[in-house]
């Protein structure tokens, strides 16, 4: 029997991440974001990471101090980000990333979201490159190879393989078969397929092998290598309604 995929702690699950690794982080607007794995990687301290993610921030369902890609950046662990958002979308916003890019400390590769997803899907499907209509005629296509198929111009894009995928799932069995709940699925299965090693934070108790019907598996266990059950709060990070977060923070202030 191969070694169990169930790890007792996040620290053990990320202990071997080497400097210079390419790590993908799932999640979209907090949902499915591997908050606990962000924290573990911040504590583990690997440097010169290339980080792939939709964006660098968190969202309203987590406290402002919850770990995210910005935390790794301000922790000086990141040398490159590959994201669909590398600058604020509103004048009122400020990204931690901006300061590091301005100082030349981090390289930021901006990729349209669909291209980002498809580049990882390609890596996971053994496709080294493909053509896409997205970004044709824009600054992002300047100086790059395009080609016409059926009278329309397309941009050549290469696969984006990952060393590690950090993802969050709803349900898992001991073999690593996963289910995601609602929009939690987003980038998570795609990143797992692109990765050499997939590490999962799991919301529900990990089920015995085979407890998920084969027809209902969202990501087969052959793509999953390490899993950790998220402990209840406050030890584990769990998104909450913004009103609850505000109330708790208020209570904390009042207690001081």
């Amino acid at each position, binding site marked *: 029997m191969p070694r169990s995929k169930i790890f007792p702690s996040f620290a053990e699950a990320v202990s071997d991440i080497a400097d210079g690794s390419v790590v993908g982080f799932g999640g979209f*607007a907090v949902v499915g974001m591997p908050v606990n794995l962000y924290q573990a990687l911040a504590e583990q301290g690997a440097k010169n990471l290339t980080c792939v993610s939709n964006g660098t921030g968190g969202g309203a369902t987590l406290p402002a101090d919850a770990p995210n890609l910005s935390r790794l950046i301000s922790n000086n662990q990141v040398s490159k980000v590959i994201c669909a*958002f590398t600058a604020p*979308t509103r004048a009122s916003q400020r990204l931690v990333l901006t300061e590091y890019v301005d100082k030349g400390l981090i390289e930021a590769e*901006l990729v349209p979201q669909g291209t980002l*997803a498809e580049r990882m899907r390609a890596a996971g499907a053994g496709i080294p490159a493909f053509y896409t209509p997205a970004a044709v005629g824009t600054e992002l296509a300047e100086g790059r190879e395009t080609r016409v198929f059926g009278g329309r111009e397309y941009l050549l894009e290469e696969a984006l393989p990952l060393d590690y995928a950090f993802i969050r799932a709803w349900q898992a069995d001991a073999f690593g078969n996963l289910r995601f709940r609602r929009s939690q*699925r987003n980038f998570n299965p795609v990143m797992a397929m692109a990765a050499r090693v997939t590490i999962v934070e799991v919301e529900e108790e990990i089920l015995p092998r085979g407890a998920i019907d084969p027809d209902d598996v969202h990501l087969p266990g052959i793509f999953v290598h390490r899993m950790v059950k998220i402990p209840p709060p406050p030890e584990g990070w769990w998104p909450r309604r913004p*009103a609850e977060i505000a109330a708790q923070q208020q209570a904390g202030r009042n207690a001081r």
Partner: protein
Amino acid sequence: MSDAAKGLTRQQMCDRLAMEFQDGWIVNLGIGIPTLCSNCDFGDKEIIFHAENGVIGYGPLARPGDEDLHLVNAGGQHVTLQPGAAIVHHADSFGIIRSGRIDVTVLGAYEVAANGDFANWKTAGQKGGGIGGAMDLAACAKHVFVAMEQTTRNGAPRLVERCAIPVTARGVVDLVITNYGLYEITADGMALKEIAPGVTVDEVRATTGCNLIVPREVPPVRLRA
């Protein structure tokens, strides 16, 4: 200088665009003003809202306290699901977009040009940008509608002859709604189709940065009773 509060409210802008949605259309809404389109009343028409994160068939925003923390739209807002909804992953979700199955995407913009170009991912001089799914959507949706304020906070026109900042896609915009009116991009250029209550054609012209085709009689923006 324009008055952002003048003319249509943001919900009215979205209500008007939503009248253009046809029965059975698959609709994708960008972050910001466009998200208000999923709150509209479509009567007998069936409108299927698709979000970049793989949600097909969402509906109005969840009521506060009723949010499903596992379910957001592309703007990160907690929404509800309609009967018949389905979930796919991000690569499949953009497969739906790129294969031309989105009947219309409604996007915000910094600038829309008379030739149908538009810009919504980076401001002048900014390093990097916030593209999200806009380039995939703009390049591939059957129709591209834009919902934005008539001018910037400083009163500069957002309707322009040619975009001054990097574009999101070229020649793709069909219809634009601002708080001042409804515009169509035609083969001959930007055409004012309907005007907001309380706004004059002179005010529209003064806040528009491109040649504008204006009919002799400009009907008021159609609004639901």
